[in-house]
């Protein structure tokens, strides 16, 4: 059997490794635009901050691919997939497949506005991006978009000694992860680090001769030499669309719970797909390393004729700001719009948390100041444990002695510290 994998990211590599686990004979060929081995995008902000060297972000060497018997066609864009003939075109060659795995990932968006092509505009996605930013020697940087990548990049540049501005269009930072109150707490923490945060502002353009000199928003002009775009990503689905695969309403490739696309023999996983949310069951984009890997496991297993099911997306995002851990799990009030949500909240000097419950089930959790017990909350969200059941178990010595993991969540689900 011959499996072709498009993509050398988290999803592509996990799929390859998983196929190897199931079969030592299966032929695996991997395609990627870039010509370097797998790296972890999640470590890039740490490199930018200077905490770790750049080469540490690479997870594989070319030797590792050889050892796993993965044939690599790196630096080759796949131009076309012919699903009827079961073949794809890369360069001027054709490759036939028995199974195809699309792990084409996503790309940061640079909006087409005035000045966004000037020297000094950057994104954070590949190790080269980081090298380019460092070579540029930024001193005053504006980060557009305060999602988790924006916030991490802002802290990283601040750590390099830059003057850093963070611009967010919505009324709070990390609007898809946190509700207003915890977002404000985190914003205060960022401001204590001397990052200048502006929310509710829309970027209208970048000004400068050849270089970025100023960033224009609907409310002010900021003098700067660097603009970093972290205002969202676009799924790489052009190839899938051209091939005739169904693309969903959120812009991701449509897959079923076996990670199978709308055409037989084709699987997809990673940032490029949309899959049901573990809580709502509605289509969602996950855009996380862990989901990419889990989806790739499922795709690879089913591709080899083994049964595996994807349980659904559930986001977990951790940020450490000035050594204080902040975590958002599952949905926030924005994501739960339309549901009747109960909020269990606690605030003290060094800990803030809120637990969102719908119909007796935990749907989301946000916490600033501690990671203790969050694993247990995450487990409850994934599993859909009713709060009432957890409370009952926690009141019963017999059950708690064998169900230790519930214990950790007690202070959160009783709303007491």
């Amino acid at each position, binding site marked *: 059997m011959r499996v072709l994998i498009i993509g050398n990211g988290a999803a592509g590599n996990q799929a390859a490794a998983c196929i190897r686990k199931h079969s030592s004979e299966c032929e695996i060929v991997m395609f990627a635009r870039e010509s370097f081995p797998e790296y972890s995008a999640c470590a890039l902000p740490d490199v930018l901050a200077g905490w770790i060297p750049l080469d540490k972000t690479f997870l594989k060497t070319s030797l590792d691919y050889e050892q796993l018997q993965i044939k690599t066609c790196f630096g080759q864009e796949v131009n076309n997939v012919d699903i009827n003939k079961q073949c794809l075109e890369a360069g001027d060659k054709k490759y036939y497949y028995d199974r195809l795995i699309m792990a084409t990932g996503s790309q940061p968006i640079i909006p087409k506005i005035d000045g966004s092509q000037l020297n000094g505009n950057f994104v954070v996605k590949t190790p080269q991006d980081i090298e380019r930013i460092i070579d540029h020697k930024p001193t005053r940087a504006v980060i557009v978009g305060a999602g988790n990548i924006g916030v991490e990049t802002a802290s990283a540049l601040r750590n390099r000694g830059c003057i850093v501005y963070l611009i967010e269009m919505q009324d709070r930072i990390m609007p898809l992860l946190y509700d207003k109150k915890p977002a404000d707490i985190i914003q205060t923490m960022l401001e204590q680090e001397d990052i200048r945060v502006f929310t509710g502002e829309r970027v209208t353009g970048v000004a400068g001769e050849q270089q970025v000199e100023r960033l224009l928003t609907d409310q002010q002009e900021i003098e700067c030499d660097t603009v970093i775009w972290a205002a969202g990503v676009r799924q790489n689905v052009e190839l899938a669309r051209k091939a005739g695969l169904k693309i969903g309403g959120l812009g991701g490739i449509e897959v079923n719970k076996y990670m199978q696309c709308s055409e037989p023999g084709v699987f997809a996983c990673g940032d490029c797909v949309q899959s049901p949310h573990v809580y709502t069951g509605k289509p969602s984009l996950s855009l996380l390393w862990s989901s990419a890997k889990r989806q790739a496991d499922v795709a690879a297993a089913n591709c080899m004729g083994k*049964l*595996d*099911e994807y*349980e659904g997306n559930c986001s977990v995002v951790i940020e450490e700001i000035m050594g204080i851990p902040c975590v958002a799990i599952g949905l926030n009030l924005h994501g739960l719009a339309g549901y009747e949500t109960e909020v269990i909240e606690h605030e003290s000097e060094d800990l803030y948390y809120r637990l969102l419950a719908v119909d007796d089930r935990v749907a989301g959790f946000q916490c600033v100041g501690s990671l203790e017990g969050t694993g247990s909350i995450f*487990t409850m969200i*994934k*599993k*859909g*444990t009713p709060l009432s*059941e957890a409370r009952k*178990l926690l009141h019963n010595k017999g*059950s708690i002695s*064998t*169900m230790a*993991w519930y214990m950790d969540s007690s202070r959160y689900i009783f709303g007491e510290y």
Partner: protein
Amino acid sequence: MDKLIFVDYQKCVGCATCEMVCSLVHEDICSPALSRIRVVRYPTEASNVPITCAFCESPPCVSVCPSGAITKNADSGDVLINPVLCIGCRQCVQACPFGHANFNFARGTAFKCDLCGGSPQCVEFCWTEALQYVPLERALGEKREAVGRNILQSS
């Protein structure tokens, strides 16, 4: 849950037929260690007790499983493990009060009685009738009848 595996341990001779059949049906091998139903022997008491899943109303194994792999079907009452979701942490093995939920190291997942999808093979092959798959009311009815006859005879 209208029917259940009813164990009359006084009839059990400890022959292990049920264990052989169970492991053969589920794992393609005759190995008591991989059988869902297990016969515990108490030689000093001359007794054998086959232990199988009790299909508890609020099963500890379901509560404790962190991946949601074990579920209790509200309609049929069955308690089933979905091996695809099992992460192999063995919490259910530690939680089951009867030592029924068990772990297969070769597969890396937990297993328990699944009633063979509705026709339990252990019952089918138990030649002493120590195992019966009957509605609760009927099993109890038979027991009651035996007790009643005892009372009648002694009076």
